[in-house]
């Protein structure tokens, strides 16, 4: 688990190094005009969603190749860094960035599957929390390293890319050497999912003991054969084979369908980060100088809260924490809409925004993990992630249009109402669930 967190941390240092200096490199290093570069972005968002599904599917095939598909994703991104040294025009740079993001798309679902498979259900929220905290730490650290290098050199972009590559290679190595292969990892657990589904919602609460002593005590030998009786996580379906059809058939499972539907609906009302920062700047007149620091505020709150909220989710119920996270986002929107202009406002908004991520990002994966059998873990998680990502993309298109047509305030009011409605809907949707035999979440 920690090894996987370390891989993410290292990889994020590497990729955020490049992200941080890229605009500067394009404009001052290469003398290119980066306008219109964003045009590809929209198209690529759709492609990236597809890549995620493919990554998830490939990882599930052949009895769980999560580690190797994730490894390929990490390696692909790593290989892109030295290529940046060779590209001097927009088209190849655009292609390299696309390849880099393909790597990211491929690895996300298998990586989350690995996290879920190598943690017990009782500690899954915490496991994802630890992972997300390490991931964010890397993202905060990367730009710092990049600018230290630029400071030590003149036009040292080549040095930034080279160092970024070296860091990325270390990430891949740590993955290959220290992350247990999913096949072993997946089957070593004594079928905890199956046991849990029967014990019902109280189980989560009785397992509030920290540090998951369960994980340690799990006898290594007690495993199901590869043919898998383990995956009876969800009621009594026949064990699904990891085919593409089976991946899509996951949506026929009422549990996963519900999770995906909720993630989708809530995603539709989740205004993209850059709009939140723009609104914050407009409402408060945040000086341009500080504008670039706003995302750091969110990241810092995310970093600090990911583990505590993950543990909380294990204790009081993941779905509850997931919805509460959207409550925090709702509160952030409300604060942006009030006429209160206190100095504490940006801090409060950013804290709530980070809180939202800490309570939803990893927690959603933990929730979804319980509704997906092990054979299809990557595909299932990819499905939820993709649904959410597409919904958010649609939301940012819609929000942009609403902003244009009616102004920022009305657009935000509309999103706030939409988010409140979606959250209410999600609440009612889960309400009758505990009676269902497959329910073991909250």
């Amino acid at each position, binding site marked *: 688990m920690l090894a996987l967190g370390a891989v993410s941390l290292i990889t994020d240092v590497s990729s955020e190094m490049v992200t941080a200096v890229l605009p500067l490199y394009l404009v001052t290093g290469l003398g290119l005009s980066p306008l219109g570069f964003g045009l590809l972005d929209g198209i690529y968002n759709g492609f990236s969603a597809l890549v995620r599904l493919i990554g998830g599917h490939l990882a599930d095939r052949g009895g769980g190749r999560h580690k190797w598909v994730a490894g390929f994703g990490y390696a692909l991104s790593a290989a892109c860094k030295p290529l940046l040294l060779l590209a001097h025009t927009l088209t190849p740079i655009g292609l390299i960035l696309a390849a880099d993001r393909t790597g990211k798309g491929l690895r996300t679902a298998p990586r989350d599957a690995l996290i879920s498979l190598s943690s017990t259900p009782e500690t899954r929220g915490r496991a994802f929390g630890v992972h997300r905290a390490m991931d964010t730490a890397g993202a905060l650290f990367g730009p710092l390293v990049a600018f230290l290098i630029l400071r030590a050199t003149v036009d040292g972009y*080549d040095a930034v890319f080279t160092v970024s590559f070296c860091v990325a290679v270390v990430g891949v190595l740590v993955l290959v050497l220290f992350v247990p292969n999913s096949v072993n990892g997946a089957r070593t657990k004594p079928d905890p999912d199956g046991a849990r589904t029967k014990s019902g919602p109280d189980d989560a609460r009785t397992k509030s003991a920290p540090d998951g002593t369960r994980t340690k005590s799990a006898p290594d030998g007690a495993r199901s054969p590869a043919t898998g009786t383990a995956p009876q996580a969800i009621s009594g379906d026949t064990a699904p084979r990891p085919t593409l059809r089976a991946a899509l058939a996951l949506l026929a499972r009422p549990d996963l369908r519900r999770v995906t539907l909720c993630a989708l609906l809530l995603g539709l009302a989740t205004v993209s980060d850059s709009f939140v920062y723009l609104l914050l700047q407009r409402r408060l007149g945040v000086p341009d100088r500080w504008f670039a620091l706003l995302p750091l505020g969110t990241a810092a709150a995310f970093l600090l809260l990911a583990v505590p909220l993950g543990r909380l989710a294990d204790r009081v119920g993941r779905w509850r924490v997931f919805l509460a996270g959207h409550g925090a986002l709702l509160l952030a929107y409300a604060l942006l809409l009030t006429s209160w202009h206190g100095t504490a406002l940006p801090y409060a908004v950013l804290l709530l925004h980070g809180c939202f991520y800490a309570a939803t990002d990893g927690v959603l994966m933990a929730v979804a993990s319980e509704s997906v059998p092990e054979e299809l873990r990557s595909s299932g998680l990819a499905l939820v992630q993709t649904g959410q990502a597409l919904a958010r993309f649609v939301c940012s298109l819609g929000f942009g249009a609403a902003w244009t047509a009616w102004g920022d305030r009305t657009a935000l009011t509309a999103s706030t109402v939409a988010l409140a409605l979606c959250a209410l809907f999600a609440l009612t949707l889960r309400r009758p669930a505990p009676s269902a035999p497959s329910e073991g979440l909250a």
Partner: protein
Amino acid sequence: MTLRTRILVLISALVVLAGVATASVLHASARADRKNQTQPGGPRITAGTVALATGSGSHMIFRNMAWGPHRDELTTVPASNPSGPRTASKVKCLRFYAAAGTGVCLQSVHGPVQDTYRAVILDTRLRETARYDVPGIPSRARVSPSGRYAAWTAFVGGDSYAGTNFSTRAALVDTRTGQLTPSLEAFRVVKDGRTYHAADVNFWGVTFAADDRTFYATLATKGTTYLVRGDLRARTLTTLHSNVECPSLSPDGTRVAYKKRVPGLSKDAPWHLYVLDLRTMRETPLAEPRSVDDQVVWRDDRTIVYALPGDYGADLYTVPSDGTGKPRRISTAAVSPAYVN
């Protein structure tokens, strides 16, 4: 593999990678040292006094890009001998422009975490009179012919993962009152006679007329660029012509020189220089066959000056404004010129 072997493999890889990383940083910082050495055969540069009004004939002031101790400083040469010896000022700018005793200098400020940028207003003796935050990497700078207004453009980058959404922000300041318009987005856009709204509006490349009320700029929306005429009093922007970037108004105020996106050229260098007659709206291609990415400067009503990539960043070229003649290099390792008297 045992744990011991794996750790050994990791450590040996770490040693190799750390070596490569260190070497690359050292190599890049050695380049820094090289850049501080004067290049043999480069222009002769001496420290001295640089002023925006010399009283000793026309001068060209620009950012000196030649390697050596005066790299990136504002330097001056007589307008009649642009490749002659340079006098350096100690004031460092990324972009610069000046008119009628007012200068605008876009600088980077090295912070502990990252670079920030600012626009500094300079008086006749290059002393700072005001400074403003610039939200991204500076790209264009202009001062109105009267010296009262200054404008600059910056690229504002995205901050998402591998963020590739860039936008531009054009700011205006009244140097007399200090009143800043941080973005032209605050102005009302009139397109085809009607008020135009869109979230994707970007502005860049402001150029001022002599009346201290009219200015021109580029507006981009939905994949098309437009020449807009701005009104500082009414705070409006009216579209005039499409496919115009980085306009530069002639001293007599009748024509605009600009870069036009020409089909068939590479995506990275798609522009050719044109001059637009504002009365007849007729376009004249200039005799420069290469793609130019610069907001040009009018040396006089007949001559255009602009920068093209060169061995030390950029060189300055000149070409007649009526489409005749041939481009001619007037200075190496120089960018952001302004003519002062």
